[in-house]
Structures are given as C-alpha cells and as structure tokens.
C-alpha cells in the first residue's frame, strides 16, 4: 500500500509541480527545523530503533552528523523506516532529504534514479549464512540449496550471477522485508540466508541460537554502501558528501568527541583549518565555520561511530578491514579540507 501511495505522490509531484527540481534542500530542512532521513526497518548496527524508539546505528549516525552540522542538535532528525523497495521512490518524491539505508552504490542506481551517491560509509560484500548442522564449509557446496533473500536488493542479482557462473542450481524465495526473510530462514524454509556480510552478522543476533549458524567465507560481490541525495541540488550534495569526509578526516587527525575542544585550541595549521579557526570552508558549504566541531561533538569521528555501532564496541564486533583508514590498510580516504 505504501508503495502505491509513494508512486502516486511521485506521479503527482512530477506531474503537477512546474519546477520539480528543488534546489533548496538546505533551506527546506532549516525551515522545517528537522532533517528527514530514510533508514532501514531495523538492521542492528546500521539503523534500528531500541526499546524506547531511539534510532541507533552507523547509517543513523550519518544523518545525526548532518543534523549536527546544520542545527548543532543530534535530535533534529526524523527517521523514516523504508523497505528496500520503497527507498528510492521516497527519495525521488521528496519525502526524505537523504537516504542513509545500507544502499549499494551501482552505476544503474547512480544514473537512472535521479539521485546521487555521496560517498561510501561502509565497504561491504555479499555473503552466505547457513546452519552449522548442514556441515557446509564453502559457498561452492551449495548446489540445489534453497536461498532466502530480501526482494529489491542487489543481492538477488548477485545471487543469480554467482550460481549461474558456478553452474549450480538453486531455489530463491524472496521476501518483502528483512525480518520476514530472517524468520523464514529460521523456520527452515531455506538452507541459506544471503545478504551483505555485515547484515549477516547483524541478523545472526536476531536468531534464537546465533551459535548454531555460521557465515561462509566467500564474499561474492562488491557492496559499497553509502548515502544518496536527489539530483539537482549541488549544495545539498556537497553537505552530505563532506559530512562523511569530515568524520573521516577527524579520525585521521585524532580528533574525537572527547578531545575536540582541546584540539581546537592547538596551534596546528591543519587542525585550525579543519576545526574552523582558519578559513571559511563551512560557510562555503552553507553551514557554519565550526561545522566539523559540531559533527564530531554530535556523533564522534568515523572510527568512534564504527566502533560504537558495528565494531569492537558493539555486539556485532566486525573488524575494521576494508573500512579502516587508507593509512592503516583500509579504503576510507577523504579528500583534504583546504
């Protein structure tokens, strides 16, 4: 039902508004006093509500960081939970300002949806989870297996490609939401549950006996996850893009939510530039001079956000791996703030 409503909204918005390309997202957000952020319907570590209804996770913190940069207040975000199928329509129709929902960056999504990816918040890859009792040690032993998958994801296509390339047969059962998929896997409808590997670890926590299940070693795809914004508003695109870069730069410079005030007082030229004592980069973005300070005070630097939500400090305990900084063997790299 929601999908139909969204499509109708989109049709009406596209059909009736004389100038649909809205180049004023920042102004709209400020006037509204609230950032509208599209997230998942519950994926631990990335975006899930706790028992009090507070959203937490890596994707959530990206939105909180943007709200921090604009309002200096992490609470001024309205989180809109979206299924994989509804997410792009919600962005296109203007229901949300930014989509931060473990979404894989692909060329078709970047070029045909009227939206842009602003960066990579998490380098992921698709994996498989099976019951230990099946005694399977490799994805190549999965011939004739039944596979549960969430519909409307890159996962479905990767799966088809992988089994075809390896000349294996399989049966796919596609569900509308993540929870339904996990439930069906748990009920024994399928032998295998597949999604991004981070999602496998996250979903394993939802299963009754997590230790009866294992994630297979194969990673069958590249899944760079990142936020998306609508075409046609370059200022907004820059803000979302540089919010992530600011978090990465802060980690690189050792600026954390605890020491940011002391660091701002130091006479280091790079720190002065980044933390706003020197230059007016924040103002050029349409924000304030101390935008990086605000972001770091709101959510912390990228490393802190990673650790708290998916890394060592979280139940998921995922290694930094590809998501480490470029100078520590990972891929996270921000262009210089100068």
């Amino acid at each position, binding site marked *: 039902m929601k*999908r*139909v409503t*969204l*499509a*109708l909204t*989109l*049709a009406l918005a*596209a*059909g*009736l*508004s*004389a100038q*649909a*390309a809205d180049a004023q997202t920042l102004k709209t957000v400020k006037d509204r006093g609230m950032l509208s952020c599209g997230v998942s319907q519950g994926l631990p570590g990335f975006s899930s509500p706790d028992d009090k209804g507070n959203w937490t996770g890596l994707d959530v913190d990206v939105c909180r960081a943007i709200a921090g940069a604009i309002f200096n207040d992490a609470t001024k975000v309205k989180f809109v939970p979206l299924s*994989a*199928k509804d*997410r*792009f*329509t919600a962005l*296109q129709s203007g229901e949300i300002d930014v989509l931060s929902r473990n979404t894989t960056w692909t060329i*078709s*999504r970047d*070029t*045909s*949806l*009227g939206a842009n990816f602003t960066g990579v918040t998490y380098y992921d890859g698709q994996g498989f989870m099976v019951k230990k009792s*099946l005694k399977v040690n490799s994805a190549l032993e*999965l*011939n*004739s*297996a*039944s596979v*549960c998958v969430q*519909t*409307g*994801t890159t996962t*479905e*296509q990767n*799966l*088809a*490609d992988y089994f*075809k390339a390896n000349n294996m047969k*399989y*049966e*796919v*059962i*596609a*569900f*509308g939401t993540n929870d*339904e*998929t996990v*439930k*069906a896997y748990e*009920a*024994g*409808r399928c*032998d295998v549950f597949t999604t991004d590997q981070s999602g496998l670890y996250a979903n394993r926590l939802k299963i009754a006996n997590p230790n009866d299940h294992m994630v297979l070693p194969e990673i069958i795809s590249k899944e760079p996850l990142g936020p998306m914004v*609508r*075409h*046609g508003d370059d200022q907004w695109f820059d803000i979302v893009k540089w919010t992530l870069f600011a978090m990465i730069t802060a980690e690189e410079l050792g600026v954390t939510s605890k020491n940011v005030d002391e660091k701002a007082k130091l006479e280091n030229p790079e720190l002065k530039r980044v933390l706003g004592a020197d230059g007016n980069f924040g103002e050029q973005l349409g924000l304030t001079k101390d935008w990086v300070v605000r972001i770091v005070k709101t959510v912390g630097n990228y490393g802190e956000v990673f650790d708290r939500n998916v890394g060592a400090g979280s139940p998921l305990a995922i290694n930094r791996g590809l998501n480490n900084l470029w100078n520590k063997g990972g891929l996270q790299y921000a262009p210089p703030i100068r």
Partner: protein
Amino acid sequence: MSTEARKPPPQIALKIRRILGGKAGWNGVAVQFAFAAILGWISYEIVSNARANLENQHIAAGFGFLRNNAGFDVNQTLISYTGSDTFLRVFVVGLLNTLVVSVVGIVFATLIGFIVALCRLSPNWLLSRVGEIYVELIRNLPLLFQILFWYLAVLAALPNPRQSISLFGIAFISNRGLVVPSPIGERGLEPFLAMLALGIVAALVLRFYARRALFQEGRMIRIWPYVLGLLFGLPLAAMLVFGLPFTFELPQLKGFNFAGGARIIPEFVALTLALSTYTAAFIAEIVRAGILSVHSGQMEAGASLGLSRGATLRLIVVPQAMRVIVPPLTNQYLNLTKNSSLAVAIGYPDLVSVFAGTSLSQTGQAIEIIAMTMGIYLLISLLTSAVMSVYGWRVSRSLGA
C-alpha cells in the same frame, strides 16, 4: 407517378442529443464536449509535465526497460523463465502466478463457503454452531495475520527435506513443499488427448440431447453410463492402440533438495489456504442470506412434492437464491484476487512481489510499473465481473425473471 414511403428522420442525431444533452438539448451536448476537452487537456498536461520533469531530474522514463534483462530468479514459474529473460517476461510470470492463486482460491472459497452456509442453515444444532463459529472467527481476524499464521504453521509442521514424509515412495512432503512425480509426454500422448477431447464433446452433446428430451417431451433419459464409457473408454482404447501417453519422472533427494518431479511450494499452499478460508467466511454469509431470501413456502412446496431436503435445496431454492447471491459473490471474487497481492509477505512470487517489487527497485521506474500493475488488476477485475454478470443474467433469464 409512384409514391415512395417517407423516410423516418435520422435517428442518430436525435439519440446523441438525448443521451449527451438531456433536457438541455444541443447546448447540453456542447457543454459535454467542452468538459471532455478540458479533461483531455488536463491529462495531457499531467503526462507531458511528468515526462519533462522526470527528464530534468534524470530519472529514467518510458517502457524501454521491459526489454532489458531482469537478472534475478523466481521460484515458481508456469512458463519457462531464467534470470536472463526480460522484465516483460517477469511481468507475465508474476501475472500467471497471481492468476493461478486467484483461480484456485476462488474455487476453494466457493466450495467452503457453500458448505459452511449449509452448515449454518442446518437444523442440526452442532453443525450450525460450528458454521457460526467459523464465520465469526475467520472474518474478524486480519487477513495478513492469517496468511502469516498458515505459512508459519505449515512450515513449522513439516520436516526438512532429508527427513521428508514419504507417500508410498513417489511423493514427498517437506518444508520445501510437496514433490510429486511429473508426467513426461510419450508417443501415445497426442491420440490420448484427442480421444479425451472427443469423449468430453460427445458427453456434452449427450447431455444437451437429454435435457431437451426432458424439458420438451418430459422423457427422462439415463445418460451417465454412456458418459462414463465415453470419458474413460475412448482414452483407454487409445492407450491400448498407441501405447502409454506419458510416464512419470520420480523425484529423488539430491544434496539439499529433491531433483526431478513437480513441486508445489509451501508459499502457494499457505496463500491459497488463507485466501480461500478467509473469503469463504464472507461467501458463507452471502449464500446464507441468498437462501434465506427465498420464501420458506418454496421449501414446503418441495416437501409436499415428495422431494428430499437436499433435492429441494438443489433444484428449487438454490437456483432462486443465486439471483441474490451472484452480485455480492462477484465482490468477494474480486476481493480475493486483490488480496492475493499480500503474497509478498510470505515470499510467494506474485505480480506485486516480482514486478511491482523486485523489478521496480531494480529499474526504479515506479510510475510505469505501478501504472502497469494497477492496469492489469483493473483488467482482471473487470473481466471477472463481466463473466459473473453474464452468469447472473443467465440465472435470472432461466428463472423467467
């Protein structure tokens, strides 16, 4: 000098004036045309504006995507389909899956509905209470929960494929579904089918002849032995002459799953169960209302003619009740078809799931895909209602009403 009969004035122009203009005459016609023109202009503006705006925002538009490769698989296909087929084929696959679950659901819902209605009307206290409880329980629970309940109940009750329940070693039930031997056509298939068709046609002709004899001359002709002979004898004879029409491929456990054989997936079973039991509760009330609308004197008249209760119901009451039953019954059929779109909750690959779901998010072309999906649901519903209208019209006509 011959006199020609005067031609009547042209009726068409007058008709148009009356239909479109009503009492306002030609002025009314002008108003109607102006109104139609404005409507047309507005819809043209909406469509062209939408196109321009989508183009400005670089959102892909148009129906070209239907020729692209889908690149994902579907686990129940009535026609052959692989991941390298087009989105158009996905559309057809999804549509057929929707149709098959709707048709099977409608048949079962009607059967269960009639049975429950007869239970509720039965003089037997226990039967009528059971019918009442069924109706009140089922129709007061949300359908989505019932679908999930059946799905999880079906799954929970069944073992995994390695411990599957074997039915005489030829069919297997597990939480992957029911696997049965699949027929494979042999040399004798064509003559067999031809003879079967001939048998059916001949049986229908016999029935037509017998009914005419009954209604016009009052003669009862017993035809069922001949019908049985035609339906079974002819194909059997063909089999003896040309050999077996088909052999069966037996399913075998290989690795995780059964290979070979045909399979009914648990999603289909759960969805059909939920849809038909749910709709049956409403149909039961419609049928009960219809039967109660027939005057009780009809029942008594049947009894006084010496007909049994069943025969009175079948021959006298139900045909009259059908006039009342058919229109709301059509609504229920339409509801069932539309409700089948809840399939995505349990992973049944219906039209909404594979086309308005997966295809939509693979291509991002929401407007086109949702429009196509709504269009096809509208078409299915209109066709269902047309068929039911024809049926209702025939029922009324045969009663002389």
